[in-house]
């Protein structure tokens, strides 16, 4: 009898090509197996630093993405009304010359009339550079609606952040606390890390209204009420202060806690006190006298008072010891019993201080002190959008960093570790550039870190210079721009009108936008003359997404296996705490359609427009294509997109001239490069001279940049001062009170905007979304395997509400928010905050999109919460409609959503439903094997 498996040693494939996954921003290394030139199997690359061989559900089914019937096939030009989906296929020549003919006049007269926004773009340093060469101030990627609170909160406090820019010391941490994370960008590393903690029996605590995924495996779960993490964290800080369980030595040496806060009434009040040389100073405990903060051997005194000016530390103590922060005072609002808050504080202190670790690694700090060991506080934290997607998210992120700091758990063994090129203080970042000059490039990068009102992107008349109003008084620290406001503002002509909207990889007519129906209306709205209010829309997608129908010109991209990409240190690299890393994608297969990699298309377009940087003086192309750019583009002398194998012979790391052989070396190495941090430099990086020297050598900055953590934020205080009436640059009056409140230089908590009102208006329930681990936003649904796993979503309702409303399986609920109503299927969830409902993000699809059957579950019963969320809050007493964003960064407050629910009984489809989206590709039938 034959076994059916007679030969067990059949070779998997003819050839393996190693590149980088693209189903999310995690950027895992993959081996792509080819049989007869076709992709046959994809598995993780074991030697890759990000994923170490593992893949997630999306990565492991990447083949279904590559063979998706929804792939666009050729450039398209709109022929019917916008939104009707009437397109004709055109040649690339026509597509590119059309785009050039639209953009050329703009560049020559008013470059700001091009707004270029990108979604989950992994080439932001390139797309941003292109926009800079074009000269428009209107460029940003999607970070503004994603997690800029996390990024900015971190940079302004510790010079690094959560998101994917740091990670717990997975090897040493004994207690890991996770705030508001479902999946994160660092998907596989977090999973690998959790697995390692579990294997060691280390403790994991999940703080999240919803107990699923990572929070389901957490040893303890605190089902917090949304928007109240700041309260909880400040209460933990209160407990630690109260008990004196704080790392005073760490605070004194490495933070601005010992700096003095100017107490003199006037324009300097609340700024850090400076000496005659404009340098901040401390009181040296050895002498009791002022001394430079970074002076050799100086021992800063936390408790000093100098001429009536008190240290930051004293301000901290005063604030956080106050009774309003006691667990008993916050427990009800947070939905967590006071006893559990105290228990958590106790556990943090116990692990940080009683279970401290020490590694025998001598090092030298920036004051010249030699330390024989590194003392570790094995408590680590991670947080993401659960904290950041609230209108108090920036301050909450700061509060969390403060908690880490007082435990001495940042950049110490066992704590939270930053990944090069971080740490990097605010001062080492650029500030925003925004002045459009016809025919000229922008003078510098668009995005950056504002230090004070004088760096806001305002025009001479005080109006916002950018279409998204980033870096305006409404969002002073909007370091990632405000993509979610771009369409609404362009439609409203506020602050001005634009001509062309260039979008890349962002499904703005569906799951990426707030109030999706309104956005679709804005995209198709016409003025009195019958012309579109947003005159031109160019879009690059790889698939038949909902957004495609709303563009005038479609530039079809390749799939991730068919193009070059560069994951650069200039952008969002793949570093680890002990190594800077970057990587590439390269065409492991050739496209079988008339599509082109968007970056190469941008370069081509740039040459047609004569953009400097990509055009030679004779008008020819400086770079043949994106691959050529990756190798030969020079940002700063010796610095290009990739750090590996630089120099003519490939022997240089970080800095060095272009190496024509660079891509081949990357490919041979599995698509990535790592520059390893020397042993002495592995921890305490902001203060560790060995690290600082290595960072300069490896090109992150030009001179060493040691700095102190900013517990007291001067940039914030500068905005408060302006709002109090100091200084020449003044905010509009209606924003003063809000700036004074939100720009507190010490972390605070205030209720999310609209929270109190919403409850009063009759929207008592919080409504959230979570990322499914097995879907990436909208594009997972075209994947034949993933859509069988998760082709429908439900609104999960906690037990108390489930029973109160008498819901039964199969029921639908009508869900109403101040800005909309949906009718959706419900299901019961027990491990859920009692005031919260939620659903998986972006499962709902528009009928006809993604090459799916019009009767697909995704379109029939699937739904989005986005219809309930608006970019503006309902009008307040004063008639103002505030934006639904964090007042510091402009981060979209997705998770501030408040609703009420009613039983709607069994239904056969969710509402709203939209007309079928006309197909730009035929419906998928069979799956290719």
């Amino acid at each position, binding site marked *: 009898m034959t076994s059916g498996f007679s030969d067990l040693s059949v070779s998997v494939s003819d050839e393996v090509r190693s590149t980088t996954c693209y189903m999310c921003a995690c950027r895992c290394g993959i081996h792509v197996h080819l049989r007869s030139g076709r992709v046959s199997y994809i598995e993780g690359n074991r030697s890759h630093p990000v994923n170490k061989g593992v893949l997630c559900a999306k990565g492991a089914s990447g083949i279904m993405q590559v063979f998706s019937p929804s792939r666009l096939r050729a450039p398209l030009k709109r022929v019917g009304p916008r939104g009707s989906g009437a397109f004709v296929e055109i040649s690339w020549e026509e597509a590119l010359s059309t785009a050039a003919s639209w953009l050329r006049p703009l560049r020559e007269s008013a470059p700001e009339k091009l707004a270029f926004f990108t979604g989950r773009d992994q080439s932001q340093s390139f797309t941003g550079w292109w926009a800079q060469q074009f000269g428009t101030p209107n460029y940003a990627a999607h970070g503004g609606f994603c997690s800029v609170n996390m990024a900015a909160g971190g940079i302004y406090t510790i010079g690094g952040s959560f998101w994917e820019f740091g990670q717990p010391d997975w090897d040493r941490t004994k207690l890991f606390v996770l705030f508001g994370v479902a999946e994160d960008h660092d998907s596989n590393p977090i999973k690998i890390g959790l697995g390692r903690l579990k294997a060691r029996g280390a403790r994991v605590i999940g703080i999240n209204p919803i107990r*699923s995924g990572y929070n389901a495996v957490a040893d303890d779960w605190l089902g917090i009420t949304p928007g109240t993490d700041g309260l909880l964290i400040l209460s933990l800080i209160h407990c630690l202060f109260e008990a004196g369980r704080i790392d005073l030595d760490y605070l004194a040496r490495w933070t601005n806690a010992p700096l003095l806060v100017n107490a003199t009434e006037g324009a300097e009040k609340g700024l850090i006190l400076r000496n005659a040389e404009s340098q901040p100073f401390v009181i040296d405990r050895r002498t009791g006298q002022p001394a430079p903060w970074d002076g050799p051997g100086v021992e800063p005194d936390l408790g000093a008072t100098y001429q009536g000016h008190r240290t930051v530390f004293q301000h901290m103590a005063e604030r956080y010891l106050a009774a309003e922060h006691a667990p008993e005072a916050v427990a009800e609002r947070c939905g967590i019993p006071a006893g559990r808050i105290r228990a958590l504080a106790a556990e943090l202190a116990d692990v940080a201080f009683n279970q401290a670790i020490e590694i025998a690694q001598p090092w030298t700090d920036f004051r010249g002190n030699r330390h024989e060991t590194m003392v570790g506080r094995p408590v680590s934290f991670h947080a993401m959008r659960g904290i950041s997607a609230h209108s108090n998210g920036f301050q909450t992120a700061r509060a969390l960093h403060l908690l880490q700091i007082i435990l001495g758990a940042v950049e110490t063994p066992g704590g939270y570790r930053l990944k090069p090129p971080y740490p990097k203080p605010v001062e080492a970042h650029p500030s925003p550039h925004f002045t459009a000059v016809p025919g000229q490039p922008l003078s510098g990068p668009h995005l950056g870190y504002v230090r004070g009102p004088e760096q806001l992107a305002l025009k001479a008349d005080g109006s916002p210079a950018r279409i998204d109003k980033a870096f305006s008084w409404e969002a002073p620290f909007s370091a990632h721009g405000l993509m979610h406001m771009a369409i609404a503002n362009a439609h409203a002509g506020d602050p001005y009108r634009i001509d062309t909207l260039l979008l890349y990889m962002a499904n703005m007519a569906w799951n990426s936008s707030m109030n999706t129906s309104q956005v679709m209306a804005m995209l198709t709205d016409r003025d009195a003359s019958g012309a579109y209010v947003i005159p031109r829309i160019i879009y690059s997608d790889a698939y038949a997404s909902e957004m495609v129908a709303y563009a005038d010109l479609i530039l079809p991209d390749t799939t991730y296996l068919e193009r070059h990409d560069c994951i650069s240190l200039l952008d969002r690299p793949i570093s680890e705490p002990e190594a800077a890393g970057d990587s590439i994608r390269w065409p492991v297969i050739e496209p079988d359609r008339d599509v082109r990699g968007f970056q190469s298309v941008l370069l081509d377009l740039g040459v047609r427009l004569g953009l400097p940087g990509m055009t030679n003086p004779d008008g020819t192309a400086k770079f043949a294509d994106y691959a050529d750019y990756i190798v030969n583009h020079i940002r700063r002398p010796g610095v290009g997109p990739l750090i590996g194998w630089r120099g003519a012979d490939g022997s240089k790391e970080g800095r060095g001239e272009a190496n024509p052989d660079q891509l081949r070396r990357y490919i041979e190495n599995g698509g990535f490069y790592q520059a390893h941090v020397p042993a002495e430099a592995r921890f305490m990086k902001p203060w560790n001279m060995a690290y600082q020297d290595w960072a300069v050598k490896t090109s992150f900055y030009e001179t060493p940049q040691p700095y102190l953590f900013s517990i007291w934020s001067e940039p914030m205080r500068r905005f408060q001062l302006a709002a109090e009436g100091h200084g020449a640059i003044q905010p509009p009056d209606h924003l003063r009170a809000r700036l004074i409140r939100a720009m507190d230089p010490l972390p605070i908590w205030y209720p999310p905007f609209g929270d109190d009102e919403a409850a009063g208006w009759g929207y008592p329930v919080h409504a959230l979304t979570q990322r499914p681990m097995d879907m990436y936003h909208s594009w997972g649904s075209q994947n034949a395997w993933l*859509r*069988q*796993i*998760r*082709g*429908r979503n439900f609104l999960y309702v906690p037990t108390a509400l489930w029973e109160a409303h008498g819901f039964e399986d199969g029921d639908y609920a009508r869900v109403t928010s101040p800005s909309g109503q949906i009718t959706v299927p419900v*299901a019961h*969830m*027990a*491990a859920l905050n009692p005031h919260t409902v939620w659903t998986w993000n972006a499962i709902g699809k528009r009928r006809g999109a993604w090459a799916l059957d019009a009767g697909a*579950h995704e379109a029939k019963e699937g739904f989005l919460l986005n219809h309930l969320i608006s970019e503006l809050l309902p009008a307040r007493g004063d008639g103002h409609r505030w934006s639904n964003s964090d007042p510091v960064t402009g981060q979209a407050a997705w998770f501030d959503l408040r609703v009420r629910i009613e039983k709607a009984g069994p239904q056969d489809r969710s509402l709203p439903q939209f007309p079928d989206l006309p197909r730009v590709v035929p419906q998928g039938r069979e799956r290719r094997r």
Partner: protein
Amino acid sequence: MHPAASVILFTVLSGMGFGLLACLGIGPWLGWPAPAPGLAAFLHWGLGYGLAVGGLLASTFHLGHPERAWRAFTQWRSSWLSREAWTSVATLLVLAPVALSDWLDLGWSRGWPGALGPIGAGLAGLTVFTTSMIYAQLKTVPRWHHASTPPLFLGFALAGGALLCGQTALALIALIGLGLLMAWVFTDGEHRFARAGQSLGTATGLNRIGKVTVFEAPHTSPNYLMTEMIHQVARSHVPKLKALALTLATVIPAALMALSLAGAIPSLAATALAATAHAAGAITQRWLFFAQAEHVVATFYGKH
């Protein structure tokens, strides 16, 4: 289970067929009047063979690869399905000379081949028993995994066989017995899943923590397990269907047999009517048998 027509037909038809064949085979040894040679014998045996073979053929419609059905003969040592293949074929072969003899009046039954009759009858019984064991062996379906399942199948075969071969008295007794058994199985069956003690808690082992319920299904599209094994009958229909099955399969035929015995109605008409009702009842019972199967795998999906 999804109550597939092919399996229902298979078990009902082959059960009746092998029951009839058994009666025909053993009849002469019990002194029952043999069917008259010629047309009567042809029709009788033909009906038996027709039902048995028709049932077996119906079962192949359930197969993904009927062309490989011959392989089902290979595993008689362990597989009841394989054993059923053997016994059914053996029955059909062993009884063939007897049938031929009856039809063509070869008189073989008076010679040694006559001994094949009871052997065939025994094999026919064995066939029905093996069929029943296909279901009774499945611990995964507590409703089936029970000592009553073989008697139930055999009871149907006996009642159907007796009916079809005109053994009114035997049919009456068999029908009464079957009715009682059915009634008891219908009642007892409802408790067997609970008695088996499997739940989502034991299926997952999470009963060691507490009470387990489903949060999310592993897939939102249906799969083979759900369409094949997790069929749920609307509870409100079940009592009606049970009553219908019992009435059609046993009460009506038994009443007709009693009337016929009492001479109140002509026996041929009674038999025809009774057999029809019985077959309809058997189909109803079998539909319930499969539809109500309650496989333990349903616990994983929270469907039990």
